[in-house]
Each structure stands twice: as C-alpha cells, then as structure tokens.
C-alpha cells in the first residue's frame, strides 16, 4: 500500500526550498580531505559499525567538483594550505565544511612553524569536531548538525 492509497487525490503544499533542502540533507556527497591519523577514525565512521549510510552521507566523491560537504580530517600545514584552499574553491555552491579533529580545528598540539593553526584561517568552517581523534558518535552528531544547517539553507538569504 503506497502513499497514494492513504492520501487519495489530496494535495500537499510546501515550499520548493524545503523539498530541495530535504533532498540535499539526506544525500550529502562528501569529499574527505584526509591528511593524518584522524583518517583512521573517519574510516571507522564510514564502515559498517557506525555506518553513515544511515544518514545518507556514505557517498564519497573523489573530486571536489561533485561534492557538497568538505571533511578536513587531520593536520593541515602551511605547505598544504594552498591546496586545501583550491579544493574548497573548486567545490560548487552550496557547500559546507566540517573540521574534523583537534588539528584541523586549531592546529592541535602542533603549535610550531609548519602547521596551520586551524583551517578556519584559510576557509570558512561550519562545524568543528573536537577530539584527538574524535569519537565516531561525535562525527555522527556533527553530521546531524550539518543536516539541520542544510535544512535551514536558503538561496535568498545567502544573497
């Protein structure tokens, strides 16, 4: 018995924006930018135990042009900073960024000449996940928060 049988020939009214955002938030194409040991934790989130497929975010794209969520996982140093900026610029709008782990968020304990002290110095960040490395539950929580944020996204408000 499908939905048609329940609703008959009745109408549902909504906003286009709501439906677009609803579709977007359950089909996140992510681009993992993995540079360090947090990558292991990212892999465990992606695999069967924690299974981000439940939230529709299991589809990794290995080109930034096809993705809408950038996951910066691990330490980013000054040598790599232009690359990360270019990856971010290549992503098409709308785009969101998660900073995964202490190093990506603040530089972590690498307070030295080579490490960028947080990726928010070069690209805008939507959600920061603390932890060294973060627990998978925290990543899932961040994913839910990103979904909330996507649901509130409005083309008109961005302009």
């Amino acid at each position, binding site marked *: 018995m499908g939905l048609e049988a329940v609703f008959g020939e009745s109408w549902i009214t909504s906003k286009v924006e709501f439906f677009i955002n609803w579709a977007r938030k359950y089909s996140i194409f992510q681009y993992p930018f993995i540079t360090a040991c947090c990558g292991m934790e990212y892999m465990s989130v992606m695999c069967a135990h924690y299974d981000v497929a439940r939230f529709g975010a299991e589809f990794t794209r290995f080109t930034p042009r096809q993705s809408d969520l950038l996951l910066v996982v691990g330490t980013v140093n*000054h*040598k790599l*900073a*232009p690359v990360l*900026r270019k990856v971010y610029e290549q992503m098409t709008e709308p785009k969101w960024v998660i900073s995964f782990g202490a190093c990506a968020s603040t530089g972590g304990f690498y*307070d*030295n*000449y*080579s490490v*960028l*002290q947080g990726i*928010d*110095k*070069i*690209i*805008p960040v939507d959600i920061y996940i603390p932890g060294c490395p973060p627990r998978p539950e925290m990543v899932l929580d961040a994913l839910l928060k990103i979904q909330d944020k996507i649901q509130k996204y409005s083309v008109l408000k961005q302009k």
Partner: protein
Amino acid sequence: MSQVVLDKLKERFKDAILETHNSFGNETALVSRESLLDVMRFLKDECGFEMLMDLCGVDHLPEVPRFEVVYHLKSFSRGYRVRIKVRVPEEDPVVDSVISVWKGANWYERECWEFYGIKFRGHPDLRRLLLYPEFEGYPLRKDYPHKKRQPRIPLLKPETR
C-alpha cells in the same frame, strides 16, 4: 661490542679522533671536521659499515662550536653499530658531504641543511626537501622564533599567537 671499531679508528687516525665514549652500548667517536671524509671511507671500506642508518643535526646553542652532525652507521656483515659525531662552528657551518661514500646520505643532508643551515660541501643538489621553497630561515635552530609563522597564502584572520 663495537669497541674494536673505536680502537681501530684511534690507532689509524690518532689526533683526528677527538674523543670516544661508550654509553649504554652506543660506541661514539667525535671526529675532527677535516678528517671526516677519510674516517668515513675507512669505516666503509675497511670496517664493513655498509649502511648509513641516520644523519642528523644538533643545535647546542650556548656552546661553542654550536652545531653537531651525527652519523649512525651499521655493519650487517659484522654486526657492528657505531656513532660518529662532528662539531660544526656557527660562523662556518660546512661539513664534507658523505654522498661519495654512501649514496643514501643525499636526502639526509638536504634535510639537515634545510632545518639547521649546515652546508654539505660536495652535495650535488642541496635544496629544500620537506618545506616549501618560499620558507626563510632554519626552523630547528634554537634561535628560530618559535611563534614565527610563514604562511604561503594570506590568512582570513590574522594569526596572532
């Protein structure tokens, strides 16, 4: 265990071996800068040290001479392991390259030059190995300001720390 090697070195090079010691089984010889290459050739050709395991720099800032280059050698055929040190003064930070003895020294010497500014005479291609080309200064020297940052692209928020 490798005391034999140190004895051989002292017998052969006499004054060029400034000091030898053995702490926790690590036989170490402090060699004068001028005779480094001869000592290394001797160690490879006649003592069987086929492998240069590591080469690194040390900055002993208040001391004179300031820098030190440390070589770790291993002999598979005889089971010896020995450590050779050379002191390098700050005003003339140059030592002979040991690439002619062990080819594997190439990248070690580039790394050591990039981080400590110790030049290796006779190195064919002494340029940066790990850092980016625009980087100025030698970051592992103790007088490098530890809060100094050299970003390649302009930062969104000024890095104040």
